[in-house]
Structures are given as structure tokens and as C-alpha cells.
């Protein structure tokens, strides 16, 4: 009886008891959801456009952020460094296409996945070689991003909003909107989806895989940069960030690998769900359930919709 009370009643009592705190939890969940969504967005871009599950997205985030901070440390002004980093991501996209995917047309998904894992290894080694392993501080202010926080008196308590978090949310939503339109409304967007379905057939109708891949990898690179800036501002820039990328997996899966809005909705469900779960139910089992709760949430959704919330229907026909 007691246990039932603790599981089914008490958490809600707590929520009502401290409504300001509950709001804060929701906000934190929202913010981490947005950040997860940003990482997931990079994955979705590449997956949607080429059927490649880009394992290297996490490391690209770190790589982009490190380049930015590193270039700034070399004495470049912040905006020049930002521009130079975008150029670097472009070069990376080009190199990735030339060296790797150009040769792996029409290979099974898992092979492409493996290739991105190889890329991950390479980028980690290369990144640490160039930038060193010590954590660096993100140049938030120099880039003109807001810092500081505002506290609101609501419901008899304080809700503290970090300005950088608000900026992150705005940027993420903008990106999702732009990319969403790009994919569904343009000629290139259609071609991208065709490539993801069947490389060989896409080639046969004259879609240039090379070009397409450079475009999406570049776009993913820019998303990675945005992600890197936002995450970097929250903690700092180091290779530890790479691990965060795993959080994007349940988001992706929940939203559906191919859906851009799915990334943001999935991100929010996961972000808010895991915060609430951790804060209100976590203590019952000793805390730390955040590490797997996201996956379990995703799993539950998947049992009802095996292709994720917004994913394309898995075609089963014979």
C-alpha cells in the first residue's frame, strides 16, 4: 500500500506542493530537450538524406566547438572565428564525401554506420592532437550570446531562466523550421529522400550523390556547430561532450529517424520526461535513473509505433 502511495500519489503531491519548483523542472526539461533535439537534428539530416546513421555527429559537435574556441584563442575575432569554423565544417563535409562515402555507394546501412564510426575515431584523435585534451571555455559573450539569468516570482517561489537557454531554444526552433521547409518543399529535399531510399536508383535518375552528400554533411556540420556552442556554454568544451550524443539516440528513435519535427518533439518528450522522472520518481529507486529512462520512454512509444512518432512507415510488402 505504502509503495503504491509512493509511486502513484506522492510525486503528484510534491508537484502541487512546490509549484514553482515544478515549473523550474519543466523548464529544465524543456531546455535539455531542446539541446537533445539539436543533436538529433544533425543525425536526422544525414539519415534522411542518405540513409547513413551518422555516429560521428557527436564528435562533430565537439570538433566544431573546439575549432571555434581554438581559432579564437589564436587571436581571431569571435565572428571571424565563427566564419572560419563554418568553412572548416565545409571542408570536413567535402573530405568526408570524397574519402569515404564516394566509395560506399549502395552499401548496407550497417557498413555506412561503421564508416562513420571510423570517422569518429579519426576525428577524436585528430581533434585532440590539434586542440589538446583540456577543456576550454566557450566564448559565449564574445559571440554576442546572452549570459546571465532572470528570476521570476511565480506561484510563491522563484523560477530562474538562463538567457543562454532561451537563446538555445530560439535557435533550435528556427533551425527545425528552416530545415523542415527545405526538406519538404524543395527539389533538393525530394532528391535527398530518394537517395535515402535507394542509392543505385537515385544514381540512375541522375541525382548526384556526391553533391547531395556534401550538402547534407555541411548542413549537419552547421547544426553541429550550433549544438556545440549551446552545450559548450552550459558546461564547457571538451571531449566529454561527445558522450552527450548518446542522448540523441532515444530522441531520434522516438521522433523517427526521418522526421525533422520528430527530432524536436522527441527531444521535448525525452527532455521533460526524464527530468520529471528523475526528480519525482528517481529517489524511490536511488536516483540516477535518467541514464536509462530516456531509452525506456522511447521503447514504450516504439512498442506502439515501431517507426517512431513521426517516422516514415516501415514498408512491409512482399
Amino acid at each position, binding site marked *: 500500500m505504502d509503495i503504491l502511495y509512493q509511486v502513484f500519489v506522492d510525486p503528484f503531491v510534491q508537484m502541487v506542493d512546490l509549484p514553482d519548483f515544478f515549473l523550474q523542472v519543466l523548464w529544465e526539461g524543456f531546455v535539455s530537450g531542446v539541446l537533445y533535439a539539436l543533436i538529433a537534428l544533425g543525425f536526422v539530416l544525414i539519415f534522411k538524406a542518405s540513409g547513413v546513421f551518422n555516429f560521428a555527429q557527436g564528435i562533430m559537435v565537439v570538433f566544431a566547438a573546439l575549432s571555434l574556441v581554438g581559432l579564437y584563442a589564436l587571436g581571431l575575432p569571435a565572428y571571424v572565428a565563427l566564419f572560419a569554423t563554418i568553412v572548416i565544417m565545409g571542408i570536413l563535409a567535402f573530405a568526408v564525401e570524397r574519402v569515404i562515402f564516394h566509395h560506399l*555507394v*549502395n552499401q548496407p546501412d550497417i557498413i555506412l554506420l561503421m564508416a562513420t564510426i571510423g570517422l569518429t575515431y579519426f576525428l577524436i584523435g585528430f581533434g585532440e592532437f590539434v586542440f589538446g585534451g583540456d577543456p576550454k571555455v566557450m566564448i559565449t559573450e564574445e559571440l554576442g550570446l546572452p549570459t546571465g539569468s532572470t528570476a521570476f516570482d511565480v506561484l510563491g517561489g522563484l523560477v530562474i531562466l538562463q538567457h543562454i537557454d532561451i537563446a538555445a531554444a530560439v535557435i533550435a526552433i528556427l533551425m527545425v523550421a528552416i530545415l523542415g521547409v527545405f526538406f519538404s518543399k524543395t*527539389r533538393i529535399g*525530394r*532528391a535527398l*529522400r*530518394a537517395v*535515402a*531510399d*535507394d*542509392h*543505385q*536508383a*537515385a*544514381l*540512375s*535518375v*541522375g*541525382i*548526384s*550523390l*556526391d553533391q547531395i552528400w556534401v550538402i547534407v554533411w555541411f548542413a549537419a556540420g552547421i547544426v553541429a556547430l550550433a549544438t556545440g556552442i549551446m552545450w559548450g556554454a552550459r558546461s564547457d568544451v571538451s571531449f566529454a561532450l561527445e558522450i552527450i550524443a548518446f542522448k540523441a539516440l532515444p530522441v531520434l528513435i522516438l521522433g523517427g529517424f*526521418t522526421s525533422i519535427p520528430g527530432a524536436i518533439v522527441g527531444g521535448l518528450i525525452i527532455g521533460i520526461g526524464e527530468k520529471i522522472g528523475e526528480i519525482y520518481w528517481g529517489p524511490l529507486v536511488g536516483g540516477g535513473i535518467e541514464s536509462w529512462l530516456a531509452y525506456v520512454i522511447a521503447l514504450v512509444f516504439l512498442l506502439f509505433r515501431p517507426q517512431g512518432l513521426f517516422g*516514415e*512507415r516501415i*514498408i512491409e*510488402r512482399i
Partner: protein
Amino acid sequence: MTAVEFAPAGEEAVAAKAPILSVNNIEVIYDHVILVLKGVSLHVPEGGIVALLGANGAGKTTTLKAVSNLLGAERGDVTKGTILFKGERVESRSPNELVRRGCIQVMEGRHCFGHLTIEENLLTGAFTRRDGGAAIRRDLELVYTYFPRLKERRQSQAGYTSGGEQQMCAIGRALMSKPQMILLDEPSMGLAPQLVEEIFEIVKQLNVNEGVSFLLAEQNTNMALKYASYGYILESGRVVLDGEAAGLRENEDVKEFYLGVGSGDRRSFRDVKSYRRRKRWLS
């Protein structure tokens, strides 16, 4: 559809026109070790329809893929020989460049984009075109008049359409690129008899009205030789016989093995009593 009077181009006509495609003595190896084409040469005259015939595994698909440069995706390589399209070497050109230059392939086994709708599939065919939305719309309507069934199913995901519908979609998609040369791999496969005829009529129409050249890999020899001007017969990766379509139709061996009109009338499938190990041109 308006029927156009059609006569196979005469010998002089073929000779007069320069070949739009010529394949010279190519060799293809899969997976580094499996030699599949052993010196295949063939020529498609500008505005001609050439049929490529042969048993299963003879290498028809491989030949077409070699031309359209899709072998790379199957880990195959052209190791010898040259391929010229409109007088230019194209072995090292990427497939999309070839499409842009006007040579497109309809792949065997449909290969529609399963998650895209039929209409989106057709539109991807126009990817390389730069002549504006209106022209593309017009051609889309044209494809729909060729294949009314596609219009009915235009909003369905291609992955869920029937085999024949997918075949139509694949052909229609190729037409959308406004090609000068189409490599057709088994266009009639899985189509209802009526449609088979219609497809060949479309081929003929495009050939006559728009001057599109065709290289046609086909098992329906009867049809193929009826519409083509010239034919090549492939056996185990070699060209074993070639000639004017009319001439091939009269060839005794061709009649026996490909047309089924050996001596006298059509045999009934029921009457084929034994699996005769039949004579091959090679072996």
C-alpha cells in the same frame, strides 16, 4: 495514343547515322574475381532501337550498367574496352553526368523509391532538368496519359503499389528526364499483355517523334525484334550473333530458341516434353 506507322530503319539509314552509343570490347569483373563480360562490343545508331537478347545470366544487365556507370555500386569494374556516348568517352563519368547528357537507364527490378509517392518518384526523374517547372508539369501529364494507372495511384507510396505499377513508375520516371537515349532493362517484365504492347508503342512513339534512341534488354524476343531495328544476342558474356532485326527473326536458331516458332506453328508449353540440353552457340 496515336498509332504511328512504323517500319524498321533500313540498312542504309543505320549506316548513315553515326552511333550515339558505341561499346567497344568491354570486359567486366565483379568483386575482383568474377569475369562476366568477355569483350562485348555493340553500337546504337542515333535514333535507333537496338535489342540486346540472351538467356538469364548472359550479361545483359551488366552491359547496360556498364554503360550507365552503375557498376561501381555493385562492386563491378570495367577493366577493358571503351564506351563512347555521342562520341565521348564516358567510362569515368559519373552516372548523373551521363543523365545530364541525355542517357538514362531504367533498372531491372523496378527500384522505385519506396517511401516517396508515385508522383514524387516521377518528379525525381526530372532532377537534372533545368527547363523550368512548367515544362516538367507538362511532361508529368504526358506520363500520366501514357500510364493512366499511375495517375490513379499518384498519392500512394511507391513501396505499396503492385509490381506492375512500380514498373510503370520506373519507366515513367526515366521519361521525365527528357533523355536522348534510354537503356531499358526488361521493360515488359511483370506487365499485363496489353500494357506490354503499349510500352513498346510508347518506345516507338518516342523514337519516331522525339528521336530518342533505345538500347533494350528484353526477354520478350518476339516483341523486341518486332520493334527494334538491330539486335545483339549475348551468351555467357559474349556477343554470339548480331544483325538486322528482320534478319534475326528469320534465323533458324533464333526462331527455335527465342521465338518458339521452330518448325511450323507455336508449340504448346504443355508439349515440351523433355529438358533437351539445347545447342548453344558457344560451349
